[in-house]
């Protein structure tokens, strides 16, 4: 399956922002694999809220607010796909 440049760059941005927040909060994260459960990652709901706010700033996307029907992504992979799909439907 071909992954578009845009999807790749969104994934990189999400990972970079997660690492950034972890560094600010002095937290050590487990490896950021696709099947990592977000709330097991060491990031609490506040940190995820901050992540969403920063991603809106850098990507111009807030799929949580833009979509009417939110299935909250449980894993990191689903979270990233959520953003990739939102970008693709723009």
């Amino acid at each position, binding site marked *: 399956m071909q992954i578009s440049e845009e999807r790749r760059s969104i994934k990189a941005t999400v990972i970079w922002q997660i690492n950034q927040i972890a560094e*600010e909060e002095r937290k050590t994260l487990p490896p950021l694999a696709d099947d990592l459960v977000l709330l097991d990652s060491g990031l609490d709901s506040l940190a995820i809220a*901050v992540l969403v706010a920063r991603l809106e700033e850098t990507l111009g996307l807030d799929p949580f607010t833009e979509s009417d029907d939110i299935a909250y992504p449980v894993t990191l992979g689903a979270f990233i796909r959520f953003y990739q799909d939102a970008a693709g439907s723009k």
Partner: protein
Amino acid sequence: MKAIRDALGSASASSGRFLWGANTSVSLSDLRIGSSLGGRLRELAGRSVLVATRDQLSAALALIELDGVAHRLVICPPDLSSDHLPAVIHKAGVEAIVSDRDLDDQGSLGGRLHVDCSVALTQADRAQVDRRATEWVLLTSGTTGAPKMLVHSFAALTASIKGGQNQGAEVVWGTFYDIRRYGGLQIFLRAVLGHGSLVLSSADESSEDYLSRLRAHAATHISGTPSHWRRALMSPSARAIAPHYVRLSGEIADQAILNTLRSFYPQAAIGHAYASTEAGVGFEVTDGLEGFPASLVGAGGEVELKVEGGSLRIRSPRTALGYVGEGRSALMDAEGFVDTDDIVEPRGDRYYFLGRRSGIINVGGLKVYPEEVEAVINRHPSVRMSLVRPRRSPITGSLVVADVVLNGEPEPDFKREILRLCHESLATHKIPATIRFVPTLDVAAAGKLARQHA
């Protein structure tokens, strides 16, 4: 019962004392024999008078003449929306309007006595005017909705002004605050009831121009909000003035602005006063530190402080009597304490201001006072001022975000450094999710940072 004019004393006592406006000035000794009201003072005696001038100097002259003559003085701040004017006039029972402009275009004023006020004085005979204690009505600087109107006695307004202190003939006051608001009025009264002069600011002039005039008149005692001062310190003229006394009030004075003023004006006494239109002048802190000594709470004395439900409450002879048309109970509790709605927190032997009760941001059920976060951000040496505001979040309801004005150009590490400061001193939910560098922040007419909460 003494009125302002009585304090001007003899011709010799008031000679050499001036009120300086942006374009013209008035000698206080001329005011003893002259009138800004075209000799129509008698028509205003015993009436409820609205002072609605464009120019601050005109307002100053009218207040000096009308105190002790009018039944009630309703002071219209410069930025009062004309939409609110009819309600103010109605509620305060205004019978006459003193103004330096043509008010005919505002039909709601019709039928009431209109007296022109001018900075060009004319000779006037005052001998036949009856004397009385005048009620002063001040409007609050609410950002939304109709302003609240508070009734003060002249005794309450002047109760914090002590003879001897800052009252020498060489004292030249300056105020970034408009004198038609409580904070500025305190400075006006200190100037005219003492032996000094006063340099008035003008809405039309920049802080640069006002600072130049403060320098030209060798102002010694200068007052403003922390926002006024942060703006003034950005001006090249800030180093040209050499005040002996720097006063802050109207907003929380954080350690950063106190330290910056200390380094700009090493020769000056720097004090931050706690005052509000409702509670009057509470106290002044002069030890150079933010917050105030916990020993002030519950200590008794003329001004009594207590903290209840997190907010500072004040009982003193300096508080307002009440809101226009309402009983005392709307303003104060059964014991006579006024709730300031300013939230304070004890840490060690001091209390610190967290912010206004109405400004609370709710982050996932936890409270954040924007002012507390701003005080931390402002500690960064490159930050001039900051505004913390809520941002909607799909996860936590709200988050806090910060708009920051820098002293110079942004550098790549600034955001990280500011966040580090926040992490060192604040709980995680108070740390801004995002930081944006902006060229300026709005400062409302009352000299306070414009906040958008309801």
